[in-house]
């Protein structure tokens, strides 16, 4: 295991038999405790015994105990190696227990009919949720909306690139502009949806509505017709997240050595060509990273939709997340909602993998 380590450590581990046995006992004993506690709790739930548990907390505590023993046992048994494992193990255990376990649990929920407000509890219903999803026009509508929302990243990227270029130019008051441009990213989306969506776009006296009236739009209602509402949501989301891409691109611009642009100028490249043939290709890797991360955040878009339009008018602004949120809020239908989320996850994973593969191949072929 030590081959390939960047940091070579020569350690004389002196692990006596008692320490070894203690370590092994911890590693194998604690899951036994966990299994025992879990078994006792299961017996109460399904076996009809009454041990006086009111919730599954004891199992949780047993799990935490198991995780701690596993970490400690590594050091006891493996010495120096164990201390290295200790760097990654806590984070790995944390992530696995908080994602992999709930995801597996989510799979069970996804294939069942479970309404939290009904007294029947969970009932396994096989593929019924999938069939229902297939015939649910609102879910498909939300998915198609997501495609539009994702496409909106392209103009966002262009604006962000422009802003970054201007910030990178030799200007005064750079710090002020940087702070000012960064501000939208800092604000909570919920507050933003009130500030912009509800107050500035208020049709009677909101400043944005007034501005639109001056520009000749008779009756500026930003959320009445489907396409206007959708574009308004896109604009609000862009307003929040353009700084994010801008800063990543700015960092990339600042990392380009000045000599390259000077060399291009000496070779006779004028402004536009110098940008298009020198700066832009050099910025491609950063751009791809920025767009991919932006895409990840875009796929989670929900907060502003939930609090401004809650999907309306007629589902025109719905995102998958906000749709599932309402599905739960209105009908407490956990089983169906989870199935929708799982399908969404599969689509995302497939899509992202393909995209990352394509980006990777493109980068390799062009350099």
């Amino acid at each position: 295991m030590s081959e390939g380590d960047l940091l070579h450590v020569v350690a004389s581990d002196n692990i006596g038999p008692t320490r070894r046995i203690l370590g092994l006992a911890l590693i194998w004993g604690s899951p036994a405790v966990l299994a025992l506690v879990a078994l006792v709790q299961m017996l109460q739930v399904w076996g009809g015994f009454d041990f006086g548990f009111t919730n599954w907390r004891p199992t949780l505590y047993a799990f935490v105990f198991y995780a701690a023993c596993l970490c400690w046992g590594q050091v006891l048994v493996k010495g120096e190696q164990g201390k290295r494992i200790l760097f990654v193990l806590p984070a790995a255990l944390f992530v696995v227990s908080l994602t992999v376990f709930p995801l597996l649990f989510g799979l069970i929920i996804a294939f069942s009919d479970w309404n939290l407000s009904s007294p029947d509890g969970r009932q396994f219903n096989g593929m019924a949720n999938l069939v229902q999803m297939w015939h649910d026009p609102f879910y498909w509508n939300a998915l198609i909306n997501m495609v539009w929302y994702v496409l909106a990243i392209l103009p966002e990227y262009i604006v962000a690139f422009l802003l970054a270029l201007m910030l990178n130019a030799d200007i005064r008051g750079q710090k002020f502009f940087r702070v000012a441009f960064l501000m939208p990213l800092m604000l909570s989306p919920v507050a933003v949806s009130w500030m912009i969506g509800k107050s500035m776009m208020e049709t009677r006296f909101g400043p944005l509505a007034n501005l639109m009236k001056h520009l000749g739009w008779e009756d500026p209602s930003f959320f009445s017709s489907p396409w206007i509402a959708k574009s308004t949501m896109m604009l609000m989301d862009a307003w929040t997240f353009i700084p994010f891409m801008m800063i990543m691109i700015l960092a990339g611009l600042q990392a380009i050595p000045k000599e390259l642009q000077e060399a291009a100028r000496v070779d006779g490249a004028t402004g536009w060509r110098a940008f298009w043939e020198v700066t832009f290709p050099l910025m491609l890797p950063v751009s791809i990273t920025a767009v991919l991360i932006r895409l990840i955040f875009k796929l989670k878009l929900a907060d502003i939709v939930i609090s401004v339009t809650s999907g309306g008018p007629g589902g025109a602004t719905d995102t998958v997340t906000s749709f599932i949120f309402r599905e739960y809020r209105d009908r407490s239908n956990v089983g169906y909602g989870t199935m929708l989320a799982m399908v969404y996850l599969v689509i995302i994973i497939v899509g992202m993998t393909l995209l990352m593969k394509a980006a990777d191949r493109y980068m390799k072929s062009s350099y």
Partner: protein
Amino acid sequence: MTTQIFRDSAADRTFRAKWWTGRVVIYGLLIFWAIVALFPIYWTMTTSFKMAPDVMKGSLVPWWDFTPKWLGWKSLGLSPSTIFEQSTVRGEFLRRFYNSAVISVSSSILAVILGSMAAYGLSRFSYKFLWMKNADISFFFLSQLILPPVVLALPFLVLYRELALLDTQIGLILLYTLSVLPIVIWIMRDQFAGIPTELEEAAMVDGQTIWGAYLTIILPIALPGMVAALILSLVLTWNEYFFAALLTSTYANTLPVMVASQTGSQGISWWSMAALSFAAILPLIIIGIGLERFIIKGMAAGAVK
């Protein structure tokens, strides 16, 4: 009187004119975007000092077309005249504020501790777990970023109900830590990769253990990166709404949930809503102005390899 001997040639003078138009366009665009970025904040701030007629008229500039009043802040119990009196709204607001602060600070700190440990290990040693090598383990951590919150939300809702963690601070802290951990690992991996291993080697020659070297030598050097990761996590967790709306109801509500619930209700007046929104974003504005350097550093970490 001296005569001018050297003159700019015609070509140079057109160049200057071009340069000036370039400047004007750049500054014009910059100022335009600065207004776009800052106006909503300005609007919210001034609205919180307006009275009903001022709001209706769409007044913009205080003291010029309206007189600032403490109306909005009075309804929050935060104006000078009400600050020393009893106020249920203020109590509610402060409780939400306190919840938000506790949850975001502790989850960010937890994420930075766990994340920098993992990032350090991954940048220094090679691991092998089943079929997974270092690159796979890194990818496993970073891939959590792709996971949309909605996938975890409903299973967590059910799990937390069984574990009696619904509507508790600790429940949200765990989830928020999970959601910012990939970002922390990303930033810290970058940070540790830039620190030469000779430093630890020297420390270990001097008799330090690997953990001693990590804690006393490496962490202080990596501190700027840790601060960047911490600030970025703070911003993200402070603003988080989705999980908070689903998993809390009365006791552990955070500030965004309070703002959102007020938005829906009809009775709430314009100016107090503005005051509430402004109070909710104020900490972040302060962080943004004061610690902008770290935020940019954190976000730039992943961009440039």
